[in-house]
C-alpha cells in the first residue's frame, strides 16, 4: 500500500504503475459533467489553485449542511468516468492536474493525456459511498453550488487515506484495455 499526499509532484506520479493500491490524502476537488464542460469552454480561474498538482474526483456526493453553516459529506462514491472522456485530457493539461479518481476507467485520449502531462487514473470502488465519505475529513469550500446543484458542483474537500487503485498510469498502461481485450476474446468464443 502506497501513501500519497497532495500536492503530488510529476516525478512521484510517474513512479505509479497499474495495480498499485494507494491511500490518498490532502485537498482534492469533485467535478463531473457540467464542471468539465465549464473548464473546457470557459477555463475559469477560481478553481486553478485547488487543481494544481492535485486530483479531480468524479463524484456527485450527498452533502449535509450543518447547523453552523459548514458542510459534511454523507455518501460519496465515484461516478462513471467515461462521460468526461472528451474533456479530461485537456483539463489535466490546462490545470496541471496529477490524477483523476473515478470508476470504469477511460479511453485512448485520456491515456495519452496522462502520459503527456504526467498524471494517473485512480479507480475507487463504485457504490462505496459511505466508506469513502468517512475518509472526507473536511469540506473546505464549494463553487457553482447554486447554478449546477449539489451533485454537479465543485466541492473542494480534504481527504485522509482515500483508498484507490491505479488502473491507468502515465506510461500508457491501462488495466481496462487489458480486461476489455481478454473478455472480448472469451465473448467471441461463447457466442460462436
Amino acid at each position: 500500500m502506497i501513501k500519497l499526499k497532495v500536492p503530488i509532484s510529476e516525478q512521484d506520479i510517474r513512479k505509479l504503475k497499474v495495480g498499485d493500491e494507494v491511500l490518498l490524502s490532502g485537498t482534492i476537488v469533485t467535478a463531473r459533467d457540467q464542471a468539465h464542460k465549464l473548464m473546457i469552454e470557459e477555463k475559469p480561474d477560481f478553481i486553478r489553485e485547488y487543481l494544481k498538482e492535485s486530483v479531480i474526483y468524479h463524484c456527485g456526493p450527498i452533502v449535509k449542511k450543518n447547523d453552523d453553516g459548514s458542510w459534511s459529506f454523507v455518501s460519496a462514491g465515484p461516478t462513471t468516468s467515461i462521460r468526461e472522456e472528451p474533456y479530461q485530457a485537456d483539463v489535466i493539461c490546462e490545470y496541471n492536474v496529477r490524477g483523476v479518481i473515478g470508476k470504469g476507467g477511460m479511453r485512448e485520449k485520456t491515456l495519452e493525456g496522462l502520459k503527456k502531462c504526467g498524471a494517473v487514473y485512480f479507480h475507487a470502488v463504485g457504490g462505496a459511498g459511505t466508506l469513502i465519505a468517512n475518509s472526507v475529513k473536511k469540506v473546505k469550500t464549494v463553487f457553482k453550488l447554486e447554478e449546477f446543484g449539489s451533485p454537479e458542483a465543485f466541492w473542494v474537500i480534504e481527504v485522509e487515506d482515500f483508498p484507490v487503485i491505479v488502473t491507468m498510469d502515465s506510461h500508457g498502461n491501462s488495466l481496462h484495455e487489458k480486461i476489455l481485450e481478454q473478455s472480448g476474446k472469451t465473448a467471441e468464443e461463447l457466442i460462436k
Partner: protein
Amino acid sequence: MDLKQSFVELLRRAATDLSPDVENALKQAHDREEDGSPAKAVFRTILENVRLAREQSTPMCQDTGSLIFYIDLPVGEKEEYYINIIKEAAEEATKKQYLRPNAVNPITGKNSGNNVGINAPYFHFHQWDKGEVRVRLMLKGGGSENVGTQYKLPYGPVHAGRDLAGVRKVIIDAVYKAQGLGCAPGTLGIGIGGDRVTSYALSKEQFFRKLGDRNPDKEIAEFELSLKDDLNKLNIGPMGFGGKTTVLDVFVGYQHRHPATFYVAISYMCWAFRRKTMTIKNGEVYYD
C-alpha cells in the same frame, strides 16, 4: 400509524440497508477470489461499506437512484392518496440525506432538489384481490440504468436469430459492453417478447425476485443458470478489474410477442441491489 413516516422509513431502509440475499451473494463472491487480488480488495471494500452504511444509517451509494414504486392495491383504494403521501415522504427523505436529489427537468436542466417532479417518483399500480397494500420499492442508479439495453432479433453483429440461442448471444454481448460502467458484479433482469415498452417493464420487474430464485418454467430456469455460468466465464469481475464473479444472478421472464417483432430487454442492476417491500395490513406496517 403515521403512513408518511412509514414511507420515509421504507426509503431509508432501501438506501442504507442491503438485503441479506444480496449481501450473502457478495460474501460468497469475496471468498471465491484469490488472496491479494484487486477483485478481493474490491469485495472487501464493498462489504465494509455495506456494514458501515447500515450502522451509520447513511446511503451505501451516493447515487440513490430513481425511485420506482410498484404498488398493489385492494379494490376501492385510491392511487392518488398514495402518490401524494409518497411524494411528501420522498421530500423528507431527501432532506434527511437518505436520498440524493435525483429529479432533473430535462428542458431547463434544473434539479427539483427533492426527488419530486413530472413522473418522479415513478409509480406502477396494480389492483389485487387481497385486503392488504403491498408497496415494492426499487432504487435504481443512473450508471446501471445507462447500460440497460434492448435488442431487436435477428441481430446481425453477433449472429443472433429469433430463438433462445439468439437471446443468449445478445445477453453476452450486452454484459461485455457494460464492463466498467454498471458497477459489477451486476444482476440481470431479462424480458423476452412483448412490445418495446412491456419488454423493458418485464425485465425490470425481475429485480423483485430473490437471488437464487428460479423461473418456474424448467427450460427457462436452466437457461438462467447456464447464462450465469457463461457470463462469469468472461472474467470481467467486480468493477471490471478481472475476477470470478461478473454477475450475481440472471432472472429471465417472457411474454407473447407480435409475429413480426422479437425484443429482448436487458436491465442491469449494480451490486448495490436496492429493493424493499412494505406491506400495510390492518393498520400495521411490515417491511421485508
